[in-house]
């Protein structure tokens, strides 16, 4: 699947310079992030990540132990089942990748702005 995308990126290179294909010339940003909220990467944090990722044009991925998902897919993010303390690789490819990594990385660093009150009804 990734190989296909890679090829598609090259095929489209002439016609479309902003295709998500992993063209070698595109800037890549990445860093390791850690899940810092006690509830883990559940639906609300996933929703925050998707909304943040939508603001950018670059491709953004999260990787956990070899499993790579699109940061724009809530289903994908939830399949990571990333619990408190899990480290993930956050990677972006494209012209605004640096800004994207900063914004999504901030969400992780700030524990998705969740209060860690275990009796809170809403999760």
């Amino acid at each position, binding site marked *: 699947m990734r190989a296909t995308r890679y090829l598609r990126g090259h095929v489209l290179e002439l016609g479309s310079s902003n295709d998500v294909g992993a063209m070698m010339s595109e800037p890549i940003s990445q860093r390791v992030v850690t899940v810092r909220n*006690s*509830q*883990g*990467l*559940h*639906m*609300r944090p996933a*929703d925050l990540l998707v909304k943040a990722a939508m603001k950018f044009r670059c491709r953004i991925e999260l990787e956990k132990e070899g499993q790579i998902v699109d940061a724009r897919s*809530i*289903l*994908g993010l*939830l*399949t*990571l*089942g*990333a*619990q*408190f303390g899990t480290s993930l690789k956050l990677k972006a490819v494209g012209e605004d990748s640096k800004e994207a990594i900063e914004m999504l990385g901030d969400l992780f660093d700030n524990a998705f702005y969740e209060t860690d009150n*275990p*009796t*809170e*009804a*809403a*999760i």
Partner: protein
Amino acid sequence: MKFSDFVSVKAIRTGLAAKDKPSAISELVDSLAEAGEIQSSDRDDIIKALLKREDLGSTSIGRGIAVPHTKHPSVDRLVGTVGVSPQGVEFDSLDGDKVQLFFLLVSPPDRPGDHLRALENISRQLRDDAFCRYLKQAKTAEEILQLLVDADNSQFGH
């Protein structure tokens, strides 16, 4: 985690009558009460908690699917049910689509890991288009159960 670890077989419902979010959630919570998974006396409070969670953002995850969920101190283990609405329910989803397939979860406040593993299982299985389609088309609880058993045995997706 598998569907059989948290889906109450007796609470599975097809042909939901609800047309809006509060009545859909009420119908599903009632199914949990009728199945004996929650106490009838906790019904109203659980519905309130689920709707409070919806106020923070719809639990619709696209593709006509929603996962209403809450923590509630009255349960000592994760309980859930599956509901199908043939006509679809307005659910404030981001993509604007009506929701036809519901997975409703109620979890103990001190077990965030179980909730996360249930979400992981649901989302992994629902990435399979055929599985989603068959669930939405199901006419009886037995059909749903069979699909969930098949999914647990990895007949779909991964």
